[in-house]
């Protein structure tokens, strides 16, 4: 019953100390420095910078397109992960390796490639533009770039979780009379939901900070297709380090709040699932009895 018995590996104290030092050096120190720098400005000044017309528009573009990209990946990434885990097909290992490519590719290369593909004379753009769909150099282009960049997050988070759900579980649900939809909604989704949320959150967070790929496809027009990281670069071009830090801190605060919210959601989802487990089992039994 004691906590000690749960630890198989020794050295908890050392490892904890190491974790704290490591996280402090890597994350807290640079972020702390940034916040310290921003605090040279008053709260009012930071707000003034963040609430300027161009900044507001950039915040909207950044958050909306990141949210769209993460949502698209939550849906299609789930399908990809499911296929990769559940179905054997020729070239599966190859496809599996493809998923990681957006991680490895320099983001500028991704941006330039996507812009070339989706430009009016590109392979895809030349077919889309006659239909009235412009991707390159529009906000839609930003979403495309962000979707590309963040795909691995959802797929790689979901894969191990889907692997853990044995096919017997689906078979059991089916043999107990659940329809395919019911099996998905009541059995599979609760099991992968938290991981899906994690993948979504990772993709979203990554999209918010993405710069390299977006600037090559966005068009970068003020009020229309400027992202916050571009405004930060713009401030740095003016040697306005304080202004840049102010924007970064506001961005960080909003991102942190959103990630916290997603974590809370995830915690809630995981616990709800845990608590309701015995109930579902008894319900299942009752159903089986009726049958």
């Amino acid at each position, binding site marked *: 019953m004691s906590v000690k018995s749960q630890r198989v590996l020794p050295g908890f104290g050392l490892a904890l100390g190491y974790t704290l030092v490591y996280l402090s050096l890597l994350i807290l120190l640079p972020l702390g420095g940034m916040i310290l720098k921003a605090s040279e400005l008053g709260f009012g000044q930071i707000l003034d910078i963040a609430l300027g*017309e161009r900044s507001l528009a950039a915040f909207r573009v950044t958050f909306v397109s990141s949210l769209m990209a993460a949502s698209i990946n939550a849906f299609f990434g789930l399908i990809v992960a499911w296929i990769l885990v559940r179905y054997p097909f020729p070239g599966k290992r190859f496809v599996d390796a493809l998923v990681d490519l957006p991680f490895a590719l320099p983001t500028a290369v991704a941006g330039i490639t996507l812009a070339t593909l989706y430009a009016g004379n*590109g392979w895809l753009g030349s077919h889309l533009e006659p239909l009235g769909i412009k991707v390159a150099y529009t906000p839609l282009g930003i979403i495309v770039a962000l979707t590309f960049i963040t795909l691995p997050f959802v797929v790689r988070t979901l894969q191990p979780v889907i692997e853990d759900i044995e096919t017997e579980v689906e078979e059991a649900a089916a043999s107990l009379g659940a329809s395919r939809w019911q099996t998905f909604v009541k059995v599979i989704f609760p099991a992968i939901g938290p991981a899906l949320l994690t993948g979504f959150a990772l993709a979203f967070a990554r999209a918010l900070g993405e710069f390299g790929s977006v600037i*090559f496809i966005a068009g*970068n027009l003020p009020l229309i297709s400027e992202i916050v990281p571009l405004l930060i670069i*713009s401030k740095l071009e003016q040697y306005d380090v304080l202004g840049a830090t102010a924007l970064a801190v506001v961005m960080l605060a909003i991102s942190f709040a959103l990630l916290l919210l997603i974590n809370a959601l995830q915690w809630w989802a995981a616990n709800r699932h845990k608590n309701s487990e015995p109930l579902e089992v008894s319900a299942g039994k009752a159903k089986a009895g009726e049958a």
Partner: protein
Amino acid sequence: MTHFRKSIATLLLGLLAGAALADATLLNASYDVARDVYKDYNPMFQKHWKSKTGESLELKQSHGGSSKQVRAVADGLEADVVTMNQANDIEFLADKGLVAKDWTKKFPNNASPYTSAMVFIVRKGNPKALKDWPDIAAPGIEVILPHPKNTGNGRNTYLSAWAWALKQPGGSDAKAQEFVGKLLKNAPLFAAGGRDATTTFMQRGLGDVLVTFESEAEMIAKEFGKGNFEVVYPSLTMQTEFPVAVVEKVVDKKGTRKQATAYLEYLWSKEGQENAAQNYLRPRDAELLKKYAHFFPTVKTFTVDEVFGGANKAFASHFKDGGSFDQIYVGK
């Protein structure tokens, strides 16, 4: 493990040996597209210095966006010399006390060994007959340029159009702002940088006109073939300078003042000037300018100092937050 240690030791020895070979090392922090210029210039200077003093020099290059490079130098990148494409970047180092306050006087020609001009690149045969600034500001024309707020190339285009409008009969700042606003409305996008704008125009076929450096036009010819585009010289355009300076703090610390100064002075030598010309940058040397006249047709130019009272002033009133660029987009 021992194998690993051995290779580390060998590596370290190699590095030490490399450092010991040269009598002095100079680092030149430079803007992005200067790569070709200094790739050819550095061996030339090494040879010159060796024959003059017997000293072998190691020359290192660091390239990046002009203002990024300058920030790196301000933050401690130990560059002996900076060779940039915007005066206000070196002004920033002067403000920080890294470069002499009177750096423009330390070398001839405003400390800019060569120049370029902003020109139009149009499609073959100039189908829309674009000849001057008002033609490309007319409704229905698509203009490709890099972001005027974030890139030197874009800023030069912006200021060129402004200066043209200002010099027209009855021209005023208000009229110039209106004119530049019309021009910017013709931009379907702002490219991330000079080369990105070129790719967008040449490879992706976007736009009727690309505004860029004259030197870039020759690069385009190399890359995409001469027959695919035409260069148009507007009636008035900016003479863009490429200022250089010694980083006083670094050369004092490293004891490389002599070498660093000679390195920059040699840019004005016949060899240095000819190298610039061969890289399609207008040499200051009048004879060479004539010799390479086929690259450099006569064009009426202005300098930022003449029209805008200096690079810093131009930057402050046009590209700082709330400046004329922001006013065009956000309203007054």
